[in-house]
């Protein structure tokens, strides 16, 4: 009995050690590999959703014009980058999947501007102000200022509300699967005309003695959206399904959270209370420790295995250009939980031995 538990613990530690070494070796390799090839980028700034566009302004242009073009270029670029990388998305997700929603358009893409002078609401307001007074006294002008401020702020709120309403009208909903990467390092995801595309490298010439490998970008449409920031594939869904999934995932996360609280905080606290009461080596304590260990194993097993199950379920939606994060990465993401499992396993074994000794001791008269 003693030998078995000892060898099990030793082998667990050995496995962890080997995994650690493999991880460091493999990560070292990825950094070292060099890219000696040339890819010709598209000439046009609008090609491939403009992901490769850069600012070209003649040197001779006056500074203010240069600055203005730079600003507008940057703002367009930022909107585009945010959209392509999937920033500013509302989401509820656990480590494996989640639901995401985002506005189809951004603030600056709306057909009207908040303080467009041609806007009828603003125009009538300015007209009404113009009609009012010619030469106000100091006190009167103070009152007027206050009135104007009040009206302006109420107008602003009104405009902001209507803008938000306008934005909310067109929302996009997604079901997200986490832990996906693009297979090829050079492939990029982009959105153009509300459709999802991948820009991938087509190789024209293999590397020879005197020249590097050469290629150019080509584009193809895919059915899903991708966010490189969260490494998530986003499958478009309807609002109804979004709402259902939203509640489901929320409930699921709540349940998991409650279980984690119970097993990783509740039980250890109860264990401490029991020990402080002098009931250290009892069957209940060993049971609690085993439960914590089992829970840690189950939780890490599910986070490691469930992405594969989801991949099987949604294989039709996942383009071939994506691959899953490596198993080792997943294991290392869960290293803390696995470590908890090993530690509680050791402690449970020690408590079991303690329980046997306590039993013998109690029945020795």
């Amino acid at each position, binding site marked *: 009995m003693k030998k078995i538990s000892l060898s099990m613990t030793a082998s667990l530690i050995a496995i962890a050690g080997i995994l650690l070494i493999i991880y460091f070796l493999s990560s070292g390799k990825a950094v070292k590999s060099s890219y000696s090839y040339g890819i010709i980028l598209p000439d046009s700034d609008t090609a491939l959703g403009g992901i490769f566009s850069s600012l070209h302004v003649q040197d001779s242009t006056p500074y203010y014009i240069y600055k203005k073009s730079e600003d507008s270029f940057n703002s367009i670029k930022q909107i585009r980058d945010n959209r392509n990388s999937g920033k500013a998305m509302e989401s509820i997700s656990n480590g494996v999947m989640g639901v995401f929603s985002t506005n189809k358009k951004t603030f600056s893409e709306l057909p009207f501007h908040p303080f467009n002078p041609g806007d009828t609401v603003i125009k009538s307001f300015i007209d009404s102000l113009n009609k009012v007074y010619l030469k106000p006294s100091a006190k009167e002008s103070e009152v007027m200022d206050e009135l104007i401020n009040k009206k302006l702020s109420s107008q602003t709120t009104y405009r902001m509300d209507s803008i938000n309403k306008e934005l909310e009208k067109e929302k996009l909903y997604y079901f997200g699967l986490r832990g996906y990467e693009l297979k090829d390092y050079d492939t990029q995801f982009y959105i153009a005309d509300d459709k999802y595309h991948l820009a991938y490298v087509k190789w024209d010439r293999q590397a020879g003695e005197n020249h590097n490998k050469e290629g150019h970008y080509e584009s193809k449409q895919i059915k899903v959206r991708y966010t490189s920031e969260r490494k998530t594939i986003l499958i478009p869904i309807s609002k109804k399904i979004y709402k259902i999934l939203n509640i489901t995932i929320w409930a699921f996360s709540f349940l998991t959270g409650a279980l984690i609280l119970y097993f990783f905080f509740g039980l250890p606290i109860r264990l401490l209370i029991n020990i402080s009461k002098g009931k250290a080596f009892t069957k209940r304590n060993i049971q609690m420790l085993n439960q914590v260990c089992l829970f840690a194993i189950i939780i890490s097993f599910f986070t490691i295995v469930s992405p594969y199950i989801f991949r099987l379920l949604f294989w039709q939606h996942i383009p071939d250009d994506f691959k899953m994060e490596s198993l080792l990465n997943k294991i290392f993401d869960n290293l803390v939980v696995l470590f908890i499992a090993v530690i509680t396993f050791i402690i449970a074994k020690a408590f079991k031995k303690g329980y046997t000794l306590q*039993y*013998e001791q109690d*029945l*020795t*008269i």
Partner: protein
Amino acid sequence: MLARRKMSLTELSERVGITLANLSILKSGKARAIRFSTLEEVCRILECQPGDILEYMDDKEYKKLMR
């Protein structure tokens, strides 16, 4: 032996210096071990040999007794 000495469990426990609960564990055969000091004391009080209060049984007999 207790009957022969006309002594109650309570009296024995008091004179030996162990609790009644422990003595009944000992008497019923649930005990896993006995300290030499306890054995010595019991023998001294009851004026007997360890053989008079200890008996070997094989597993079958023991289980029968415990039933």
